[in-house]
C-alpha cells in the first residue's frame, strides 16, 4: 500500500470499530505523548515552541519503529506563547516536558458559583482573568492590543500543530485521531476554578449551585465548539474525565453523569462525532450508571484500571474499550514474556470487536516503557489481532 492507501486503511480500522463493526484487525493506538520526543532525543521545548519539524521528526521516529495505526495526539496541547504574554500561565515547558506551576487550580471561592452560573463569559473576563493575570490591570488600549496578540498567538499555535498533523498523515500514512479537546464542565471546575478540596466541598455543601455553574459552563463550551465549525470526520473529540472516580456513585449520577450523557447525545448521536473519553482511575463502581448511555453511539473509553473484560462486556454497544496494555508490563517484563501478555489480552478482549489496543496510561517519559518491549508488543499485536 502507498501512504494514502495506508492512511485510508488505518482510518477505516478506527471508523469501523467506533461504529460497532468488526474491523479488519484490532486497531493499535497506544496513548503516547512526550515519550516519542524522549525516544527521539529531541527537546520538548524546541519541538513545541520553536520548530515544528522537530515534533514531526520525533513522531516519525516513533511510528517508523513502533507499528501503530494512529498517533493518539501530537501532545502540544497548551498555547504557551499566549500564556507568556500574560506573565506566564499555569504550565511551563522545558527540554524534558510540561509541568504545572504550583497549585493554580483554585481561582474562585465556592460562594462565587452562583455568579458563574449567571454568565460564564462575563465572570471569566471581568473577575477571574484579572485575578489570574495581574498585568491585565492596565489601560483598556493596552489590553485591546494584548487580546489581539492572543488571537494571533492562538492562530499560529493551531497552524503550527496543523502542519505537523498534515505531514504525519501525508508523509507517514498515519492518522492523528484526536481532533480537539472538550472538558466536561465539572472537570473544568476541578482543574482551573476550584481545585480538589474546593470542588469536593461544593459537592457536599452546595450541589445545586455547582450543578447550575456546570450547566452554564457546558453551554459556553458547546457554543464555543460549534462556533469553530470543525468538520465532523473520522477524528475524535477527546475529553479527559478527571473527577468522577473521586465522587460517590450517587453524586456522580446526580451531578456529573447528566452532562456526560447530554454531551454524547449532542455530539455523537445528533452530529456523528466520535468521542473519546479518558476514563481515569477505577470505573468499576460506576458501570451500572453508564448503562444509561445511549446505545450505538460512537464513544470510546480509554480505561486505566479495573477488570477489562467486565468493563467491555457491561458497556458493549455503548462504549468501545480502549486500552489493555499495561505500561508496567512494558516497563518491568522481559521481552520474551511480552507475546504471551499480548496474546492473553487479545484472547480476552478482541472477540466480537469493540476493542482498540493501547496503553492503560499515557506514556510521557522513556521509563514508562522500554522501546524493545513496546516494539515487541505492537509488532505481535498487529499480526495476532487479525479478525
Amino acid at each position, binding site marked *: 500500500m502507498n501512504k494514502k492507501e495506508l492512511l485510508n486503511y488505518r482510518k477505516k480500522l478506527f471508523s469501523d470499530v467506533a461504529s460497532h463493526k468488526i474491523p479488519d484487525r484490532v486497531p493499535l493506538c497506544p496513548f503516547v505523548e512526550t515519550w516519542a520526543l524522549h525516544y527521539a532525543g529531541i527537546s520538548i521545548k524546541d519541538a513545541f515552541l520553536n520548530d515544528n519539524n522537530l515534533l514531526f521528526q520525533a513522531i516519525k521516529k516513533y511510528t517508523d519503529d513502533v507499528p501503530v495505526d494512529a498517533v493518539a495526539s501530537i501532545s502540544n496541547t497548551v498555547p504557551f506563547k*499566549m500564556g507568556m504574554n500574560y506573565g506566564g500561565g499555569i504550565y511551563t515547558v522545558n527540554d524534558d516536558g510540561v509541568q504545572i506551576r504550583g497549585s493554580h487550580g483554585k481561582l474562585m471561592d465556592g460562594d462565587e458559583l452562583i455568579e458563574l452560573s449567571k454568565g460564564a463569559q462575563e465572570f471569566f*473576563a471581568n473577575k*477571574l482573568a484579572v485575578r489570574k493575570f495581574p498585568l491585565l490591570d492596565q489601560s483598556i488600549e493596552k489590553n485591546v492590543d494584548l487580546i489581539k496578540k492572543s488571537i494571533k498567538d492562538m492562530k499560529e499555535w493551531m497552524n503550527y500543530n496543523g502542519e505537523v498533523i498534515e505531514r504525519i498523515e501525508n508523509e507517514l500514512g498515519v492518522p492523528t485521531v484526536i481532533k480537539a479537546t472538550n472538558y466536561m464542565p465539572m472537570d473544568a471546575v476541578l482543574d482551573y476554578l476550584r481545585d480538589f478540596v474546593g470542588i469536593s466541598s461544593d459537592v457536599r455543601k452546595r450541589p445545586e449551585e455547582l450543578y447550575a455553574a456546570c450547566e452554564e459552563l457546558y453551554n459556553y463550551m458547546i457554543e464555543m465548539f460549534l462556533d469553530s465549525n470543525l468538520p465532523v470526520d473520522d477524528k475524535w473529540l477527546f475529553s479527559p474525565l478527571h473527577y468522577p472516580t473521586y465522587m460517590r456513585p450517587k453524586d456522580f449520577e446526580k451531578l456529573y453523569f447528566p452532562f456526560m450523557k447530554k454531551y454524547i447525545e449532542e455530539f455523537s448521536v445528533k452530529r456523528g462525532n466520535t468521542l473519546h473519553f479518558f476514563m481515569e482511575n477505577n470505573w468499576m463502581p460506576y458501570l451500572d450508571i453508564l448503562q444509561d448511555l445511549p446505545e450505538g453511539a460512537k464513544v470510546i473509553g480509554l480505561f486505566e484500571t479495573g477488570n477489562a473484560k467486565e468493563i467491555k462486556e457491561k458497556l458493549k454497544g455503548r462504549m468501545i474499550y480502549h486500552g489493555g496494555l499495561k505500561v508496567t508490563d512494558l516497563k518491568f517484563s522481559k521481552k520474551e514474556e511480552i507475546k504471551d501478555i499480548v496474546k492473553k489480552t487479545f484472547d480476552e478482549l478482541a472477540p466480537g470487536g469493540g476493542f482498540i489496543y493501547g496503553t492503560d496510561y499515557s506514556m510521557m517519559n522513556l521509563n514508562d516503557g522500554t522501546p524493545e518491549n513496546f516494539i515487541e508488543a505492537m509488532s505481535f499485536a498487529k499480526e495476532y489481532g487479525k479478525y
Partner: protein
Amino acid sequence: MDYNLMEAFEKVVNDLVEDGMTQEQAEGIMKKVIWNLICRI
C-alpha cells in the same frame, strides 16, 4: 481597574468586524480567547 475587561473584548470584536469578519465569527473568537485564558493557559 476602572473598567470591565469585557469592554476591551468588545472593542476587539468591533475591530475584527470592521476588518471584515462577521459578528458571529468575531464573538466566537472572543469566546475562545476568554476560555483559554481561564481554562487552558
